């Protein structure tokens, strides 16, 4: 399984034609205490760069953009019930949604872990 990153601080686990998407630990640390998460509906078709989810800390709301195009096949209702999980396990249990990848060529524009680390350094 490959993990890729966007400049907007999202991670993608690629497993066949499905991508699991979340926000990075760096992103959660910048947001602060997450108090609300809104996820896309299963079945929705997202275009790359479209606002897909919302994550709100005590002070501010931030959009989570679709890093690639595709259909939402599963969402993680655990984090809507327990938004603080985004702070405690951003890279793991606090994944946001899974999409069926529409166009694998879009993955080519994403960063690997080393490139992302350089991006946040």
């Amino acid at each position, binding site marked *: 399984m490959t993990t890729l990153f966007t400049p907007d601080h999202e991670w993608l686990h690629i497993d066949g034609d499905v991508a699991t998407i979340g926000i990075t630990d760096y992103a959660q640390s910048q947001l*602060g*205490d997450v*108090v*609300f998460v*809104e996820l896309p509906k299963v079945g929705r078709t997202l275009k790359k760069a479209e606002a897909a989810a*919302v994550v*709100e*800390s*005590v*002070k501010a*709301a931030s959009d989570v953009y679709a890093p690639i195009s595709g259909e939402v096949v599963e969402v993680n209702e655990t984090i*809507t019930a327990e938004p603080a999980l985004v702070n405690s396990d951003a890279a793991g249990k606090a994944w946001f949604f899974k999409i069926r990848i529409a166009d694998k060529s879009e993955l080519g524009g994403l960063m690997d872990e080393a490139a992302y680390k350089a991006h946040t350094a």
Partner: protein
Amino acid sequence: MLVRDDLTPLKRTPLHGLHVSLGAKMVPFAGYDMPVQFPAGVLREHLHTRSNAGLFDVSHMGQIALTAKSGRVADAAAALEALVPQDIVGLPRGRQRYAQFTNADGGILDDLMVANLGWYLFLVVNAACREADEAHLRAHLSDACVIEPLTDRALIALQGPKAEAVLAKFCAEAPAMRFMDAGPRKVTGIDCVVSRSGYTGEDGFEISVPADRAEELARALLADADVQPIGLGARDSLRLEAGLCLYGHDIDTTTTPLEAALEWSVQKIRRPGGARAGGFLGAEKILAHFADGAPRRRVGLRPEGRAPVREGASLFADETGALPVGKVTSGGFGPTLSAPVAMGYLPTALAAPDTRVFAEVRGQRMPLRLAATPFVKNTYKR
């Protein structure tokens, strides 16, 4: 509110070095480089203040001494009454009062605290308004008063249920103070001006301390296990839960004190029929609002869902109405309630408790219920 010319270097409060050493995340605020949060984070800082004691650096706020040229504080009080709708003449020595500078249209130029320290009036004004307030005071009161910005003082707030016990260790007189008492007190031997007040809804104190002793005092207070440093993020969520206005957001030059639901702060003596009714800038409009009611009102709002409804969101009377009837002026998540809270303006006809209105958030109408403020009961020691 971010008021900053990018070419101007940010100012630093006397506690700047302390904040940085404590690991604060610093942000520009009203021209100052200020801590928005410490490593604990906004949520923990907020809850710590509600359960223990939080220390806030509010040195960016303006401190002004208003002294009558006659030498009599009563003359300074009478002069100041031309600029605020509050009873300042009747403010006893050693007491503090919440006030607003109004303009000729009845709008609010700034909100402030006024304390009678016996030989002068001690004013605390908002950082972003400080220079305009000083100019306003000079333009109107220079004949009668000397206006002296106290630029060599820091301001430290200690807030929360443990504030009294903590401050008592450094200032034996602190526990005897009541809410809104204010006066000179020695704190760890330092000559300070202490008031029992704050901006969190909690019992607590604000300590005006000479700039060169501020860090020493802050470190002494922070050495207490019950005290944690608190940033501007939690200061905002605490004041929002307490239903307190933030200047430039919930009140400004377009809102009158009555529209802002601040009539409690206007004493009867300055209202219609009072012995010193009117006589302040904008009195015509403000007294008319007392007589006839204000056309709109600031209200507390509790979103029914989990999503915070933030500043700027339009308010609608129903789920489908095309025209907004008002807007949200402050909104966010209330950590004590573990629920979103907001404030905004609505036409007076809609400003009744339990009315249901809708806010537009990301293109969707979210229901909110009008609720009394404060959202979290205040714990002032009256």
